[in-house]
């Protein structure tokens, strides 16, 4: 079939979500590679912010396993307190941020805290927010990336770690969030765009199908009028991805 992994498709789509000149909370894993792709293609002036206290406008010279790898500090333009980076985020200086989650619902709320049971004795304990909830609360635009199955794309998340649109339009304003909300949900099977606070399927990956997306989603997904296959990455983009992650540590891992 098509020799592109779901991870590579996700990276390519994520890269398209970064606009030139934007300040982006890059996070780690796939978004980190998306930042590399964006910088080397259509967004040469994008700047990456890393919540542990780094700002850089050139991607690290080697594949990162964490944002704190020494290679991510080499060449940084700014290095210091998390508070300053989070402060820029809260001020509204950051255009976009990436996060993932264990569960997401149709309104883009994410759960990375716990599933089932009580918070102090859950059925499944997840690692927690990290900076995810902050990015979801405060970035102008949130880009969500996650594996796609019915246990993950659920009608309603059991715990809102990172706020999306709550129960729909107007909710963010009501709870006091100053801006933002998810703009896109990129999964292993397709791409949802948020319209009026709800995920609308825009494309399904050529590695998947519309039926597979429907069957793997915990709610009946709205479809865009022109729902279509996700654009394949160009050869140039695939070369960048594979050059940066030659062993496919992030782009071909089991999810």
């Amino acid at each position, binding site marked *: 079939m098509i020799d592109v992994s779901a991870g590579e498709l996700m990276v390519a789509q994520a890269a398209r979500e970064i606009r030139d000149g934007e300040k982006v909370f890059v996070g780690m894993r796939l978004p980190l590679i998306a930042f590399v792709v964006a910088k080397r293609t259509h967004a040469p002036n994008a700047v990456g912010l890393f919540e*542990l206290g780094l700002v850089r406008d050139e991607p690290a010279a080697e594949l990162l396993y964490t944002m*704190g*790898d*020494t290679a991510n500090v080499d060449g940084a333009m700014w290095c210091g307190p998390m*508070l300053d980076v*989070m402060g820029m985020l809260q001020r509204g200086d950051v255009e976009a941020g990436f996060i993932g989650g264990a569960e997401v619902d149709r309104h883009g709320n994410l759960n990375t805290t716990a599933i089932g049971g009580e918070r102090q*004795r859950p059925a499944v304990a997840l690692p927690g*927010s990290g900076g*995810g909830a902050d990015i979801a*609360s405060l970035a102008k635009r949130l880009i969500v990336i996650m594996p796609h199955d019915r246990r993950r794309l659920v009608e309603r998340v059991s715990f809102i770690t990172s706020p999306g649109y709550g129960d729909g339009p107007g909710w963010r304003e009501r709870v006091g969030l100053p801006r933002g909300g998810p703009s896109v949900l990129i999964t292993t099977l397709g791409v949802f765009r948020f319209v009026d606070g709800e995920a609308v399927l825009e494309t399904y990956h050529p590695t998947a199908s519309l039926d597979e997306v429907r069957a793997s989603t915990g709610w009946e997904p709205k479809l865009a009028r022109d729902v279509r296959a996700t654009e394949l990455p160009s050869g140039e983009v695939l070369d960048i991805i594979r050059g940066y992650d030659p062993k496919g540590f992030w782009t071909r891992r089991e999810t």
Partner: protein
Amino acid sequence: MGTAKRTTLADAVARFTRDGMSIAIGLALEPAIPFAFAHELIRQRRRDLELIGPISDVLFDQLIGAGCVRRVTAAWVGNVSAGLGHCYRRALEQGVPRRIEVRDHSNFTIAQALLAGAIGAPFIPTRTLLGSDIPRANGTFRESVSPFDGTTVLLVPAVLPDLAVIACQRADEEGNAQLVGPWGISREGALAAREVVVLAERVVPRREISSAPNLTLVPGTKVVAVVEEPFACHPSPLQGAYPRDHEFFHEYHRATRTREGFDAWLADWVTAVPDRAAYLAKLAPRWPP
């Protein structure tokens, strides 16, 4: 000025930690995590600790698995490049080896809680986490209204750790500690704490510190012990000194899927290892790279 603060890791842990205390550690996020200190806490069998930090990579997981922990006040507990933290899961899901309490934060709220502690403010108002379930789970925040513009704010109360542990490239004998690389919430945590223990890759003369005082993260006035402990952060990285040992994290992830696996790992790498020098000898020749 004397050298009374200079000591060994075992002595620092013996003298400046006690059961039940709160310890802020791993404050720079992925780099400069004082694993050597955590291992010594485990060897000295400290119990009922409250761990405070943003994320901790697997340091919190190890202390939880070893039964040292009563409460985790953190934004994230897991294994950054490998995924979940198995000990954390077992403790929360099954109470193994003991039940722990989680006080949920985000990275920004724990930063603000320690900032409040550092500057002596009772709280810091923020707009993060409005609409999130974290404030309810945490239980210590208060929602309020800004009297200046009527907008909703979340008040994050100060967190005041009993102790902060800082690993860094260099410090002098008074504890003036210089950290190169991302600081995360190290400075806020150190200034918020009652006392600070410093693990330095190198203890250097004062003149090296005062040649670049802008790099001093915490002044020695807060520091009670200075330990020269090379490679104290392995497997996490220390900028300019050594990189992250990714494979070690992944091996830990695979080895600790079961409680028995963790116990074996702990015996192998911590309890049967008398000190950091022995740990490093055991790592050789694969590391340092």
